[in-house]
């Protein structure tokens, strides 16, 4: 059974009487351990799809099964717990708490988990080390560069050891060098540690770190195929 099973999912927004269909019947399965890039021009529904998959908003029609259970079978509290334990999020705008230290930011998901507090520090430090920011652990988040901020966000997404990491345009606010480091980190997490990664991007070069591409257009899947000329290591990118 696939980790994510989407069948005939639509998402319709209604605002001031204007109805907009962002997703118009999407079906696909994503297995644990995949690295999927969701692509498409702006307005194609790729962000909406990520939000639906990430339990950030409910789909309108169709069925979405996550980890063997339908969305509607989860209670509101269950949904919060799934987001906390099984999902990690990386946003384009980083969304760190600016006044708190790197370590405190990384601990944030633990605050809402049932992990005992005595383990928080070790888990957070391990996650910070994983993204190569141990030397910045006690820095206030505002003092970091954009690339560093996004690496903190990755550490935060990792700290609860989720089944799937959702990344929404993670390199969108970064220069290409920092963006490369981020993509390489995600690549490694998938390749070496088997994390499932679902990436939304409109940049072709970032999508090339993924193994599979789902291309959306006008709210339907236009193309769903493996990526052939995949970037295997960061070295190639840095050239």
């Amino acid at each position, binding site marked *: 059974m696939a980790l994510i099973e989407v069948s005939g999912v639509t998402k319709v927004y209604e605002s001031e009487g204007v109805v907009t269909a962002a997703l118009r019947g999407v079906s696909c399965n994503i297995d644990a351990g995949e690295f999927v890039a969701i692509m498409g021009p702006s307005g194609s529904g790729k962000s909406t799809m990520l939000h639906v998959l*990430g339990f*950030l908003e409910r789909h309108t029609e169709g069925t979405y099964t996550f980890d063997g259970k339908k969305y509607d079978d989860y209670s509101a509290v269950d949904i*919060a717990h799934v987001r906390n334990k099984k999902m990690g999020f990386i946003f384009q705008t980083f969304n760190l708490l600016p*006044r708190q230290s790197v370590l405190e930011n990384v601990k944030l998901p633990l605050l809402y*988990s049932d992990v005992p507090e005595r383990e928080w520090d070790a888990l957070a430090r391990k996650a910070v080390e994983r993204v190569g920011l141990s030397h910045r652990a006690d820095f206030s988040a505002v003092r970091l560069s954009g690339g560093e901020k996004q690496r903190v966000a990755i550490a935060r997404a990792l700290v609860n050891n989720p089944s799937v990491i959702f990344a929404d345009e993670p390199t969108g606010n970064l220069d290409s060098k920092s963006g490369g480091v981020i993509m390489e980190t995600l690549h490694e997490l998938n390749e070496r540690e088997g994390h499932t990664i679902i990436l939304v991007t409109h940049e072709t070069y970032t999508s090339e770190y993924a193994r599979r591409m789902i291309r959306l257009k006008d709210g339907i899947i236009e193309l769903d195929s493996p990526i052939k000329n995949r970037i295997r290591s960061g070295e190639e990118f840095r050239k």
Partner: protein
Amino acid sequence: MQAKHIVRTATSSLGAHKSRSILTILGIVVGILAVMLVVSVGAGAEALILNQVEGLGANTIIVVPGREPKGPSDPAVIDTLYGDSLKERELDALSRSNNITGVQDVMPIVFGVTGVSHEGETYQSMVLGGSELFPDIFGLAAAQGEFYGEDDVRGRSAVVVIGSTVAEELFGESDAVGKNIRVGEFQARVIGVLPKKGQVLFFNADESIFMPYTAAQLYVFGQKHFNRIIVTVASHDDVPVAVADITATLRALHDITDPENDDFFVSTQEDIADSVGTITSALTWFLGAVAAISLVVGGVGIMNIMLVSVTERTREIGLRKALGATSGNILYQFLLESVTLTSIGGIIGILLGAVGSYGITLVLTNIAGLNWTFIFPTTAAVLGVALSFCIGLVFGIYPAYQASQKSPLEALRYE
């Protein structure tokens, strides 16, 4: 999420907006401070009045002519001043120790206001005629000279003891003892001057003159009756029985069977203390309640700031939700922030209130010269903390609910 972390999260975000938090707290501080001051000063005033009332002696019973007035506009009030139902006969009956349980002293009092003068200086003074027991019963002692004695009472001596204000008005700086003054139409010799004493129950000792009741009856007022009879008993516990005995004795003497027809009534210090206490504490709590209205204003301020804070922190709320916070977690976080704010405000208000009312005590004792005691209003303090906590809860619930209902997505998109 553990309570400890909710507290930590709430306090750290309050700390992040220090000046705003302080300003918000101020409303609550002022409200609690006002309540504390009113209640503390009210309690002090009550204690002061009760102290004076009880200073007369908890063992003192006053017999008053006329039936007991039902209110200040009851015509019976006139009888309490001019009634003539208490005479020598009644005094004798009450003086017999086998009539009244525990009786110690019995003293008649006659009083009225008369002009007193000395060498052209005139003063309208309260004239109080009593027996030689007067200084004991009312806790008075002459500062210069002496009080009149038993012989003066028996012999209707034309002697007076004058209050400090009377002495000042008539004699200025010079010595009054041994001089003659005019009391109404008759001459009396000043044998003593009282120290400054102030109000003693129903008369102001400073503005009064004191003389043997026999002389006052004959020379000043031309009356055979008494205006009051004071009975003291040995023990406070005897008071209720003594009151019943006095009532029975006087009814028997006056052939009264129906209490409706009483031509006297008996009042105790306890009655007076009770009514004074009821009035002052009612007044205190009423003023306290008025002050508490400012707390509601403070509460609205809290709500206002919390709503601003929720809007401002939409992104943070969204992020927390995306990372797994439940609506309950967010609700508690914001509720706790407002409760923390108001509780801190409440505690500061109570401390300032205690300091403030202590300051008022110092001013009243040292500058106004009152025998004022500092009373820390424990009830008001406990109530104040509870009230400020509740205000945080009540005025924080709406903003906290607003925060908890934000969708993580909407929140993250919010710019």
